């Protein structure tokens, strides 16, 4: 691997890592609040990408408007899922996980008859390449980094500087105490679902112009998000960010050297070994 290739895959890795971070943040937020793993995260990523396909590509709406639409639509969907699935189950963790599993398989399977069998492509929003540190990088991939960063900063500001964000932090620490303080736990949980789904949709929307679209496209990002969460510890936001970046870099560099699938295998083996010797992950707390 030449130095130029290394730099190139590292930069692509940061771009990839940004997407992973968005996915992992959504997952970790939902876990921190409700102690559930959103198995439907991958399906939402996929839907986020398909919204871009229909609204931006087929519908001719400007990209940023379509992007916001995607996030809002799927955020709303997240809120509805909270109301119609999470809430009736009354918070039992296992039935909720299983229901989310059912939701994800449904969405992915329904994608085939609804979206059709043929591969779909979204043309690049920012065409062309540019020179960074002496290597050529597609502008499309580069643009992901600032957009994702903006979303992460937006999330940070929301959680730490707004009242709703404070309510979320309160629920994360102690649900009953928060409820006693007058926090409407249901609405805030719905908000957590909405934000989590919106972040997943944003990831999909950003990646839509880069990879081909198909109903199962969310599967890999979901597994990557899982690996990050295991690495960084559930419920840990710094862990999600650092882990996302690390995995993005590793994936990109190893994938360039060996191919995408062996890279995935390697990261999984790494996780298993890590779990053997450090059962709490890199940052996580004791089980």
């Amino acid at each position, binding site marked *: 691997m030449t130095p130029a290739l290394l730099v190139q895959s590292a930069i692509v890795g940061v771009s990839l890592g940004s997407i992973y971070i968005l996915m992992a943040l959504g997952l970790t937020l939902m876990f921190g609040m409700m102690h559930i793993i959103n198995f439907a995260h991958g399906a939402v990523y996929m839907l986020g990408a398909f919204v871009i396909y229909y609204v931006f590509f087929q519908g001719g709406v400007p990209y940023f408007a379509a992007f916001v639409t995607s996030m809002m639509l799927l955020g709303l969907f997240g809120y509805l899922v909270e109301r119609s699935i999470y809430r009736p189950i009354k918070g039992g963790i296992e039935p909720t996980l299983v229901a989310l599993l059912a939701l994800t398989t449904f969405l992915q399977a329904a994608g085939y008859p609804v979206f059709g069998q043929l591969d779909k492509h979204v043309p690049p929003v920012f065409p062309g390449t540019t020179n960074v540190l002496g290597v050529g990088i597609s502008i499309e991939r580069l643009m992901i980094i600032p957009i994702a960063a903006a979303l992460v900063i937006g999330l940070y500001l929301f959680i730490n500087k707004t009242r709703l964000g404070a309510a979320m932090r309160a629920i994360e620490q102690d649900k009953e105490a928060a409820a006693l303080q007058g926090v409407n736990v249901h609405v805030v949980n719905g908000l957590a679902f909405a934000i989590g789904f919106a972040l997943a949709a944003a990831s999909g929307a950003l990646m839509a112009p880069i990879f081909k679209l198909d109903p199962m496209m969310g599967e890999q990002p979901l*597994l990557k998000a899982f690996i990050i969460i295991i690495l960084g510890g559930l419920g840990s936001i710094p862990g999600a960010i650092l882990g996302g970046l690390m995995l993005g870099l590793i994936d990109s560099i190893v994938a360039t050297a060996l191919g995408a*699938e062996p890279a995935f295998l390697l990261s999984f083996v790494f996780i298993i070994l890590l779990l053997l010797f450090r059962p709490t992950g890199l940052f996580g707390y004791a089980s």
Partner: protein
Amino acid sequence: MRRKLGVPIVLAMLAALALLVPALGGDYYVHVFALVFTNVILAASLRPSLTCGQLNIGHSAFMSVGAYTSALLAKNLAVPFEISLLCGALLATLVGLAIGYPSLRLRGVYFAMVTVAFVEVIRLIAQLWVSLTRGMSGLSGIPKPSILGMTLTSRASQYYLVVGLTLVILLVLWKLEHSRLGLIWKSIGMADNLAQSLGVDIARHKLLAFMLGCFFAGTAGAFYAHFIRFLFPPEFGFLMATNILVYNYVGGRGHFVGPIVGAIFLSLLSEPFRGSPYETIFFSIAMLLTILFLPGGLITLPRKLAELRSWRTASAPTPSPAA
């Protein structure tokens, strides 16, 4: 309690199925029901893990290991079926040990995530190791099963093989569930902190339940390989693993026959759209409806209907005019 009534009924059903299908139906029905019994093995063997409170979404990976192992040993090394099946089951168990040992010590959610990732890993290995498994072209030319050197050539004889395997496996699982070990598993699933504080080594017991499931999943896989005689990596992916989970949930988690009922019911109903997205749509809707409206699963249906009937007779003395 319904418990006493349900078991003999289900056993009678199984016996009837076992005996009548080859007599009444043609090769097509024998084929379908052989797969139904395979699903029964898969569903029932997941139950001990679920009893311990472990959400295992990777069961199909172990079926895959058993299938490929047995197929390759028989095809490439002419290993007799009984041995290759055993090897398949054992390798599946060893792989289960390798995955289960580090993961079962973790919180349940971590374990679930690891199993989901693991299914992908096995699929990828099967797909990429083309020299061994023929990857996406699929592995064909797998020999038919044989007993003591005699090949089981007819569909009916293979069908009876899987019926026999199913009955033996169900018997073992039944005995274990009703032994002290089964009680320990149940206590772990109910309140694992409490079990630990009373001296139960929950990590070891969860691993045992998991490995047992892997062994039987591997057995089912081995049979499947020699029955269908063609293996294709994506078949044993996330969707199949979820299906096995669905058999348990829709059938009912509260009783031994739950997964059996779920497997039979759902396999038969989904048969018309096997292999198409509609099969998955059907399964996922069944799962969602069950969780939302009949959380105890199908086995609680008789009780629910009885409750509904007594409620209706108590509150509606006059028949409605539209009836």
